[in-house]
């Protein structure tokens, strides 16, 4: 792509084209057949959007967070599975861009040139889904490390070209002393260990996997896991997911209105119905305002190359967690209310034109992934000490 084609407005136009022409066409069959959205991801790949956060000198787009949000929402409006795959890939790539070193550039260039997917391996059996801790340890074996690990959920694990795997630094290290290890899927020892039979988000194909392989120390990304999480992984995930969810809810809301107008529905003359629609729009607008606000702040920190201390700020972390909590709850509620308004025929039964019951099932996952319960607990702790100097204890 030339510089001009990577301007935000051009990228959005490309994303809109892909969304309406490709994602919309395949979203229904991806869901019914419980399969990876091959056609949609191929379109995203062909538009070079898999290199979104990668620097231009390595063949990427070097995009910002605001446009990342808008692309995620655009893709999410037609196929939430495809949007989530793009968001998860993009923010994992951002971790390598932000925290990797020169030895990792060849992998970034490979991702940008060939559109390989980068999958995250953070989940562990019995680990409780705490992204800041890891159980399985790296074991020193000569000059290398042995990486042995099971993961219950690896989104698009079968289709990934690379994995970014969270490991405990060593068998004698505490769980919060973790490392991110970049592994190529071509390396023997990455094994699919089961299937994926969820309620929704079927296209993400979030399968269980096992890993048993030797890695060079150069495959470890970043020196501080905590920095990688607080500066990139957590905010970029919360923002990207929330944007994709917003797109899904907003998309089906707009399709519903278009359908009513097209069919000259008598309900359009009902004042109580119009008030109900307007009430849902209030929720959508509130979520979008929160999304824009957190994204703007995060973009500013990134553009100013702010020091780590700014990312440790308790108020910033509470706001970023709150975005995920609020978006996951309120957008699902909007779609749930929409099912009620649409009724049995349009809301509950499968309908490719509207896709409402699919979006309902897809969005049900939002509060569960990176569980709201855990996030509420951590926000609860943070707000107790928000006005204190607790950050000084964390500086290590």
């Amino acid at each position, binding site marked *: 792509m030339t510089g001009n084609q990577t301007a935000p407005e051009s990228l959005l136009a490309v994303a809109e084209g892909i969304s309406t022409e490709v994602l919309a066409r395949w979203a229904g069959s991806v869901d019914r057949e419980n399969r990876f959205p091959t056609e949609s991801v191929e379109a995203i790949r062909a538009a070079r959007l898999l290199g979104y956060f990668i620097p231009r000198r390595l063949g990427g787009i070097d995009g910002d967070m605001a446009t990342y949000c808008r692309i995620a929402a655009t893709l999410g409006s037609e196929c939430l599975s495809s949007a989530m795959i793009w968001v998860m890939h993009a923010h994992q790539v951002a971790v390598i861009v932000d925290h990797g070193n020169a030895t990792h550039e060849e992998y970034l260039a490979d991702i940008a040139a060939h559109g390989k997917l980068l999958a995250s391996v953070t989940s562990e059996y019995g680990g409780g889904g705490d992204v800041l801790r890891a159980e399985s340890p790296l074991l020193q074996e000569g000059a290398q490390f042995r990486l042995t690990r099971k993961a219950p959920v690896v989104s698009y694990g079968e289709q990934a070209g690379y994995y970014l795997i969270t490991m405990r630094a060593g068998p004698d290290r505490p769980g919060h002393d973790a490392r991110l290890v970049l592994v190529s899927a071509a390396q023997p020892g990455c094994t699919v260990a089961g299937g994926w039979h969820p309620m929704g988000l079927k296209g993400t194909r979030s399968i269980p996997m096992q890993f048993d392989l030797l890695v060079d120390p150069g495959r470890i990304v970043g020196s501080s896991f*905590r920095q990688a999480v607080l500066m990139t992984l957590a905010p970029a995930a919360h923002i990207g997911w929330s944007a994709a969810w917003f797109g899904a809810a907003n998309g089906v809301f707009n399709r519903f209105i278009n359908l009513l107008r097209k069919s000259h529905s008598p309900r359009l003359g009902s004042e109580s119905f119009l008030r109900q629609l307007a009430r849902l729009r209030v929720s959508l607008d509130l979520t979008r305002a929160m999304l824009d606000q957190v994204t703007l702040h995060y973009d500013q920190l990134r553009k100013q190359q702010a020091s780590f201390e700014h990312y440790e700020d308790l108020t910033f972390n509470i706001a970023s967690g709150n975005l995920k909590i609020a978006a996951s709850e309120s957008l699902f509620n909007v779609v749930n209310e929409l099912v009620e308004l649409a009724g049995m025929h349009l809301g509950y039964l499968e309908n490719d034109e509207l896709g409402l019951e699919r979006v309902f099932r897809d969005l049900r996952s939002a509060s569960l992934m990176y569980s709201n319960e855990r996030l509420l607990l951590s926000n609860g702790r943070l707000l107790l*000490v928000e006005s204190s*100097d607790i950050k000084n204890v*964390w500086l290590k």
Partner: protein
Amino acid sequence: MDTIDETVLRCLRTHLRKNRQEQVIDMTVDLGEYGLDSMRVIDLLMALEGEFKVVFPDDMLRQDVFETGTTLSNAIREFMAR
């Protein structure tokens, strides 16, 4: 070991996941080694404040205070004597 040491030790045992009551906590070992992370340190702070019926001032919220059981005990002892 005085009452302050004992109270600190009791709070550490409660809030360090891999060191339940029966396990030994060395008061001179870095608390990070026992799994004290950014979230557990808040739980620990609340527990200590509850035990000693105080709210610790910001000048006590330092990495060198929360380094080991002993540094924590000493800082609390100093604070209580203020």
